């Protein structure tokens, strides 16, 4: 596990992920970050422990008469789970497992679509309450200056970007909301690949992106 992550998930996000109230798109970014971050994994365990205590203190609700027997029948029909073996570090790619599950493979399996210039995106299939996409921004290239109508959660997978809030490298997350307006610029060196979840369209300040927005679907 890497120890160089400087920007972590908020309590709000971790608690919503623990309670199960986060839209799928955001849950994917949270799960991807936790796959790389022991600190947030430990904080998540705390929030889940609260859920355990709530469940344990809950008033019981009587089960049907034949419930136990029905459950034993169900058990007999279900396939057995086996312990998942640790993956060989050498075959590990760029994407943590939850992201690979959505892409259907690692970075070479992504179906990129050009957004103009050399910027590319790939929208991943999730429930409609929020959207998650992979963004590919060549080193040194700036994203259009934009504000946010809702929440935007960005996590770096490769390379890095800089904006007014700081420097974001692999594993770092930026939580942007209505108050933040920013122009992320991919750092020189490696091209930047991010996963970005949003629950409302972005608000571009420049004329050109505003015209292009309906077509490219950001």
């Amino acid at each position, binding site marked *: 596990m890497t120890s160089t992550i400087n920007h972590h998930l908020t309590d709000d996000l971790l608690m*919503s992920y623990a309670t199960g109230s986060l839209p799928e798109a955001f849950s994917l970014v949270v*799960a991807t970050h936790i796959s790389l971050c022991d600190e947030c994994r430990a904080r998540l365990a705390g929030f889940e422990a*609260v859920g355990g205590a709530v*469940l344990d203190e809950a008033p019981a609700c009587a*089960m049907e008469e034949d419930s*136990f027997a029905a459950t*034993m029948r169900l058990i007999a029909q279900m396939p057995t*789970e086996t312990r998942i073996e640790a993956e060989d570090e050498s075959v590990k790619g760029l994407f943590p497992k939850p992201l690979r599950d959505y892409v259907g493979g690692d970075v070479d399996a992504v179906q990129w679509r050009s957004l103009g210039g050399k910027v590319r995106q790939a929208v991943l299939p999730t*429930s409609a309450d929020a959207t998650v996409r992979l963004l590919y921004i060549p080193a040194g290239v700036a994203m259009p200056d934009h504000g946010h109508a809702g929440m935007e959660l960005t996590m770096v997978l490769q390379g890095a970007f800089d904006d007014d809030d700081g420097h974001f490298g692999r594993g770092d997350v930026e939580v942007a909301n209505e108050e933040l307006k920013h122009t992320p610029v991919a750092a020189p060196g490696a091209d930047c690949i991010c996963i970005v979840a949003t629950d409302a369209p972005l608000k571009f300040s420049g004329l050109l992106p505003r015209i292009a927005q309906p077509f490219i679907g950001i």
Partner: protein
Amino acid sequence: MNERHTSDARWVRLVERVRSDKDQAAFGELFAHFAPRVKAFLMKSGADSSLAEECAQEVMATVWHKAQLFDPERASVATWVFTIARNRRIDALRKQRRPEPEDLTWGPEHEPDQSETIALQQESKQLGRALAALPQNQRVLIERAYFGELSHSEIAAETGLPLGTIKSRIRLALERLRQEMK
């Protein structure tokens, strides 16, 4: 006798018996305690009683099959059951997939450390007491957040409390729990 103050370590032993011996009596005890709570949990999340019954059975069947994946160094049995029930709820009620983090896997020879396990089970007991001792208005919001599939803004809409009040009460509650756990 207060059940929850004696049982946390016992649940761990019962799960171990399900894992190693496929022990139906041990599973029966887990079922008697957790199935009715999972059912209540699902009904508070909006499931009707027949869906809640069906899902509670599926959750308990998953407990049986995943017994070998339970790690008493990382979670109490109640917490582990909660996560299974929560995932079932997301699948059955919200019809969404649940992305889960990559598993942290120990080496194949790993045996749970007894003292780590005991420490964790004691902490969860302590957490349960701390939760019960929260001021009513804070505890109710925590329970709603975990029970209902309500976001903070949905709780605000339903209770008529301003979103800021909800967030600050939840924050206060979490602060208190953290203080208690130190």
